[in-house]
């Protein structure tokens, strides 16, 4: 929020470039048609929420991101989180895993088990989910370019335990387009990457109907510097790209659109975020109905995880992040999210400690059980300001989407580096505005007291023995598997990758005989090649 002197009151301009008046009244929403533009919760255009009773029926799902070191350590943290009342899991993988490298790859050195769990073969996932009721909980796998392999591993874990695939609930993040914009775990070029997503959607719609094969992440685009409007607009353009790809394969929109999920970011101005989500729900419903001809209302709903973002947290006076997290959770609840996650207070500098992760979970529980956030649906509806702002945000999102469409869509806009440049330019402007004090950040550019050096924080210890142990396990698996089966599975995978056939059955076969993630990725690299990053700033 920018403020500059204008006459006797300060001008307020939101990050998305919308000017805010000091007072709003009925005249600001006089053209608003309640039935057409807002409607009842659970009904088109879903502005107020995607379910008729929202949290009265069931509070939001609480899902903290976790996982580190070895499968065993991760398994213990999962069990602990479930015991504390967390209702779903979100698995963090280390960077080598996210980039399809085995733990013994030279490029993985120093990174094994550092920012998440190391996953080389099915064996690791079996151990991570040992004793966890995968038929009852839903699991989010935060993995992108090699999501197809991770999905295959998760499904084989279920298969071996005798859990029918139609009972498996969960999400693979699997949003490759946003990886090229921010976050950066990409491997293959754009087209084959989208083909892998298409293969997963097709496979899941037939065999794993309760699984979300991809979750489009405005979150990381915003974290990379985008405004709230750009976050929503680019996420929608990405989702449209995947949807169009799947439609081109001959699937019907209502066969899979109900499983399209989103992941959004919360930090910054409270009202702007709430309006962003209300506008987003309305616009998405219209896009699905009018552009894609969806008939099933479920296909028109914007289902989302909306989490307190790391971008709003500060390394200065980290305890303030607990307070920020609580406000972000409040925004998330006022915005009608389905799932909530919060970056922990120490996340600006380390993997969340157990204490910080618990505070995040408790924040959400306090909100749900003590503060009345579940009492009534979309309590801000009807506010002159919120309804006006929802309309303004929608207009801005549409304008931003039109720019991308004029360039020929998201694939072109990402391959040319346009989106990356827009976002990094925005990040630079934001940084300058923070440093000039135009955007206030408490204890950073306003009310600054302590020195950064004084902070007393608990770091997640990194144990290099984890890597050694992981490499040993990998060797053990490799020496006990049937090499003939593995090489046959990999060669079938390679042949199929060269055709247009769905790759999932071949990936499942390779995983079943303990082919490693690195081996499967190497086959894809050989057939697909690698992404060439546009590095112009």
């Amino acid at each position, binding site marked *: 929020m920018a403020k500059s002197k204008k006459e006797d009151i300060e001008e307020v301009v939101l990050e998305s470039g919308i000017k805010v008046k000091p007072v709003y009244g009925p005249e600001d929403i006089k053209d608003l048609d309640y039935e057409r533009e807002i409607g009842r919760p659970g009904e088109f255009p879903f502005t107020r929420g995607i379910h008729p009773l929202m949290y009265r029926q069931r509070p939001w799902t609480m899902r903290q991101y976790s996982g580190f070191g070895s499968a065993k350590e991760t398994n213990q943290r999962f069990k602990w989180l479930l015991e504390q009342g967390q209702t779903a899991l979100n698995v963090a993988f280390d*960077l*080598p895993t*996210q*980039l399809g*490298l085995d733990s013994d790859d030279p*490029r*993985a*050195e*120093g*990174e094994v088990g*550092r*920012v998440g769990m190391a996953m080389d073969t099915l064996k690791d996932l079996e151990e991570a989910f040992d004793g966890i009721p995968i038929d009852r909980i839903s699991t989010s796998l935060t993995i992108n370019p090699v999501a197809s392999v991770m999905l295959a591993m998760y499904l084989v874990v279920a298969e071996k335990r005798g859990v029918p695939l139609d009972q498996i609930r969960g999400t693979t993040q699997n949003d490759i387009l946003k*990886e090229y914009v*921010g*976050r*950066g*775990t990409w491997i293959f070029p754009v087209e084959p990457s989208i083909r892998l997503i298409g293969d997963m959607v097709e496979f899941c719609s037939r065999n794993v109907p309760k699984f979300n094969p991809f979750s489009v992440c405005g979150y990381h685009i915003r*974290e*990379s*510097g985008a405004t709230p409007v750009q976050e929503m607009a680019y996420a929608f353009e990405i989702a449209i790209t995947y949807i169009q790809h799947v439609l081109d394969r001959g699937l019907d929109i209502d066969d899979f659109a109900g499983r399209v999920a989103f992941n959004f970011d919360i930090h910054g101005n409270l009202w702007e975020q709430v309006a962003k989500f209300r506008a987003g729900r309305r616009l998405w419903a219209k896009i699905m109905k009018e552009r894609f001809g969806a008939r099933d209302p479920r296909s028109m709903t914007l289902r989302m995880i909306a989490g307190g973002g790391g971008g709003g947290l*500060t*390394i*200065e006076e980290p305890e303030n992040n607990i307070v920020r997290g609580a406000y972000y959770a409040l925004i998330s609840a006022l915005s009608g999210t389905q799932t909530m996650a919060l970056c922990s207070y120490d996340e*600006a*500098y*380390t993997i969340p400690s157990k204490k910080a992760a618990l505070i995040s979970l408790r924040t959400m529980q306090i909100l749900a059980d003590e503060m009345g956030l579940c009492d009534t649906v979309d309590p801000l509806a009807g506010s002159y300001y919120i309804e006006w702002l929802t309309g303004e945000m929608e207009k801005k999102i549409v304008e931003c989407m039109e720019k991308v469409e004029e360039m020929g869509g998201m694939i072109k806009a990402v391959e040319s580096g346009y989106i990356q440049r827009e976002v*990094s*330019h925005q*990040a*630079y402007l934001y*940084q*300058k505005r923070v*440093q000039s004090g135009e955007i206030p950040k408490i204890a*950073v550019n306003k009310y600054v007291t302590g020195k*950064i*050096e004084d*902070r007393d924080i608990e*770091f997640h210890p*990194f144990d290099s023995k984890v890597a050694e142990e992981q490499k040993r396990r990998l060797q053990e698996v490799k020496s006990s598997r049937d090499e003939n089966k593995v090489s046959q599975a990999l060669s079938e995978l390679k042949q199929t990758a060269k055709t247009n056939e769905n790759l999932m059955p071949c990936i499942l076969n390779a995983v079943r005989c303990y082919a490693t993630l690195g081996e499967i990725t190497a086959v894809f690299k050989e057939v697909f090649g690698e992404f060439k*990053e546009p*590095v112009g*700033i």
Partner: protein
Amino acid sequence: MKMNEATGKRRIKVLIAKPGLDGHDRGAKVLAHAFRDAGMEVLYTGLHKTIDEIVKISLEEDVDVIGMSIYSGAHLPLSKKLMEMLRDKNLTDKLVLIGGNIPHRDMETLKNYGVDGVFSSGSELDEIVKFINERVKKKNG
């Protein structure tokens, strides 16, 4: 060699590098913008580069400054390797900056490796620009 149009002096050439597997490039790109605004010539390596590749680019491009941005926690081994390779290739004239998620307690270790400046997240853009201008001037005598 490119000249600064305003001052007629040689422009400082900076390589912004992202080593290893970490994909957090917001800080790197913000600095690229800031350095360019400050009149420097800026090159960005892109993601997932090995230290060998970074040293090779800095040699080929004859840069004055190498700024390496690391958020994964692997800053100590990566910086150590960079400094060793620069020494091996006789490239000790380069000004080396490390940025990202760097805990205070590691700053001394990095300086002992021979790193010239450490700027953790939250550092002022102007402060980094000033540091480069002063130190490059000093190095060039």
